[in-house]
């Protein structure tokens, strides 16, 4: 089919094309085969119990029922030491801790937005739009969309191949070239044959409705569906032998790894279920299970994408805000402010806690209830993509208007 051939051709040329470095502001690594995956934890994960300040007595006071225990090799439920102040949740022992030891993951505490609404939806939108929080919002323009636009217009090579592994096109992916979306846990054989696909595509040519470019959406949809199916099919045949089959986000992350090895290089995925107002648990329990699954998923992604591609890959894990530093009356936590973001990849300069920090005390809490934001997510991601793709200040200003990038030396 015509559209699919075009897509395959592009993917193939992306693999074969030599690396070309475009003008850049940072002394960036060459824009080789760079890949970026943004993982959005929707619902505001309780960062303070995952990257936990166990070295701080106030942490244990503020969370009498849910705090993680001080690192202690004899206690399997104890937190795992990161540095003198910070520890990692024990559910990440076999997935993320090895990446830390290999210096391939950094954590950025006190990260977030200057949106103080404490509303999930308002702040998720803020993050995905990536526009200044004050001022009118353009809901048709998200930061991943603008980044894809910049990378495509820059004619950087390899070509930008963006995708959203979500059931719907997220806000973050609007406003640039049409970014296809596909939910990976339900990607079966395409139901329509080539002739029927072409007939439908012909009906949609040039069609716009309610501000949506249906013509492009439809042709991209056919192409991506075909390609993802072919790729996953191949993976399943290759890996079928007695392998434990992953489920849920672990399965999706494996497939993302496979697809980002060769077909796509700029991707967005989201994971829900983090809004832990009630009985969230500590070393064990709901949040421990959920974060454990995330850790295994990310480790599985790294394994599946393979060592070569992993070297050129950056994964950024973000969430809309952190939660109250003190546990609430129901052994959960309520909406807060500062979070902790993760930056991982084979070329990441990790094994460290990055960005400015403050010693936590009742006085240093934001409004007496949650963590302050000392690293703005727009500046952080702007700094990462500036280095990774060698973008100019003007290009970064287009992706994140009004936010000067900070370079934490992560990539």
């Amino acid at each position, binding site marked *: 089919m015509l559209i699919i051939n075009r897509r395959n051709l592009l993917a193939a040329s992306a693999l074969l094309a030599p690396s070309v470095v475009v003008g850049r502001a940072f002394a960036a690594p060459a824009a080789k085969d760079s890949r970026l995956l943004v993982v959005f934890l929707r*619902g505001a994960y309780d960062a303070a119990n995952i990257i936990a300040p166990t070295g701080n007595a106030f942490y244990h006071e503020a969370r009498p029922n849910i705090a993680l225990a001080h690192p202690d090799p004899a206690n399997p439920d104890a937190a795992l030491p990161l540095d003198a102040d910070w520890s990692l949740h024990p559910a990440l022992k076999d997935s993320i801790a090895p990446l830390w030891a290999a210096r391939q993951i950094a954590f950025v505490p006190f990260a977030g937005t200057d949106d103080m609404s404490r509303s999930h939806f308002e702040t998720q939108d803020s993050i995905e739009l990536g526009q200044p929080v004050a001022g009118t919002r353009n809901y048709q323009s998200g930061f991943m969309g603008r980044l894809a636009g910049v990378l495509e217009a820059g004619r950087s090579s390899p070509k930008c191949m963006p995708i*959203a592994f979500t*059931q719907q*096109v997220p806000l973050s992916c609007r406003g640039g070239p049409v970014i296809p*979306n596909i939910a990976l846990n339900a990607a079966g054989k395409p139901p329509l044959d080539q002739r029927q696909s072409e007939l439908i595509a012909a009906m949609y040519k040039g069609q716009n409705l*309610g501000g*949506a470019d249906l013509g492009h959406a*439809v042709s991209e949809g056919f192409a991506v*569906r075909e390609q993802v199916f072919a790729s996953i099919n191949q993976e399943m045949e290759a890996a079928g032998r007695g392998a434990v089959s992953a489920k849920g986000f672990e399965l999706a992350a494996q497939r993302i790894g496979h697809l980002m090895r060769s077909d796509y290089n700029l991707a967005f995925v989201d994971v829900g279920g983090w809004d832990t107002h009630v009985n969230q648990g500590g070393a064990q329990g709901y949040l421990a299970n959920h974060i454990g699954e995330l850790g295994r998923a990310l480790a599985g992604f790294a394994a599946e994408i393979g060592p070569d591609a992993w070297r050129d890959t950056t994964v950024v894990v973000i969430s809309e805000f952190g939660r109250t530093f003190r546990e609430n009356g129901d052994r959960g936590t309520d909406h807060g402010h500062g979070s902790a973001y993760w930056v991982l990849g084979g070329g990441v300069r990790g094994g460290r806690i990055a960005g400015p920090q403050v010693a936590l005390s009742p006085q240093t809490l934001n409004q007496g209830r949650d963590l302050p934001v000392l690293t703005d997510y727009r500046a952080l991601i702007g700094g990462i993509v500036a280095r990774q793709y060698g973008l100019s200040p003007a290009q970064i200003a287009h992706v994140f208007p009004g936010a000067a990038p900070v370079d934490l030396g992560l990539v």
Partner: protein
Amino acid sequence: MARVWIGGALLAAGALGTVGAHAAPQTIPAASIAAANRVTWGVTQGAVSTPAPSFARPPADSSLPPEVAAQIAAMRISREPMAQLVQEMDAQQRATKDITDPAAREAAKKAWQQDMNDLLREAQARALLRDVYSPAQLTEQMGWFWSNLFSVHAQKRDIRAMVGDYQDVLRAHALGSYRGLLEASLRHPAMLRYLDNDQNAAGKINENYAREIMELHSMGVGSGYTQKDVQELARILTGVGVSIRPDGAQMRPQYQQLAIHDGLFQFDPRRHDFGDKQFLGHTIHGSGFGEVEQALDLIAASPATAHHVSTKIAEYFVGDNPAPALTQPMSDTFLRTHGDISAVLRAMFAAPEYQASLATGFKDPVHYVVSAVRYAYDGRVILNARPMINWLNQMGEGLYMHETPDGYPLGAAAWSGPGQMETRFEIARAIGNGSAGLFRSDGAVSDQPAFPQMQNALYYNGLEPTLAPQTRATLAAATTPQEWNMLLLASPDFMKR
């Protein structure tokens, strides 16, 4: 030529086409089609003949077409009231814990999950049957709208046993008073469970529900209330919760007269914070549940609520970014009538901006699926709504399946991405090919034969002239009636509302 051929195929299959059956087919004006397509869940022959919105109250299920009434009457959610369902399911779950044999215990747990899932699916199926067949089409659309504005996620705790009743309660208020609706949602155990207010008690504050009431259900974020207002509303809401099994403990007499127990709804004064509160610039004195009434009065009368709820309604009917010229009269009407939902809708229908918007909206997945079934099987009642439920889950808009309390997005951009469109075409193919499981009653092995009647009088007398030239050209290239059906349902014209 294709048409003649297809007509022949239809006749050969024993499905009598209406085309040409009468000497002078009545042309249906495009305006009637566009109007009916908006105020109903999708055009049918009946809908286009009376394209004005109907403000009828929700009909009794027993008055729906007999095959529909029978399906609904057979449901457990129709036979047992919610309190009984929830108590039975609670007892069943507790009983599993007493089983000592591990295998038997696992089997009992599984059976409990299955029963809970069945209760949810019944609620989803009943909603879809009403959407397809109820004559009160505007009411049914607004029923969905309120279920979405006051969204709950069925998979949390025991909410699956509650959503059938929740849906009935919201639907009964769908065209009534917003203030009544707000309180009905607040007194419903599904909402109190979902947003954790059943855990909100004096000294153990949980502000989840308090925040979402103001942010999502009424005033809207950024409309002027503060974090302090959220905290004070959370205090006002302490003790408002759910009780499945009364604890039997004696209350002190002064508490007894303040306690409320209404079905599963409970106001427990022992858990209430009786201090005074400052809420939205007013002092609310500690008195018990009366504080909640006062707070709801303030919220419902707020201009921010009039604006926010009116804008949401306009988005639902008209699409993204409704013009202020459309929302302002709605909002004014909301304030003047103290939240009379029918009056707000009338103000919207009367606005020139509404008329100008007809046929420019994009169907969300629910409108897509319901309109396809309404059109494809106009006048013939489906025997199983399960395929429709599955399609909606596939497209990510299942009823009571949204995890977060913001409800599903109402704008086109959320539903028109490449993956979304692909899924629609799959569904178009499933429906176009034949009965798609819609005519396989529960337990039956195969479908009753039921080929969709899509090249009908409504098509030739009304729809066809409204189609874009490229759609008509594509339909003419169809090689089988099945493919023709698929292409019509997959066309951009059929996505419009």
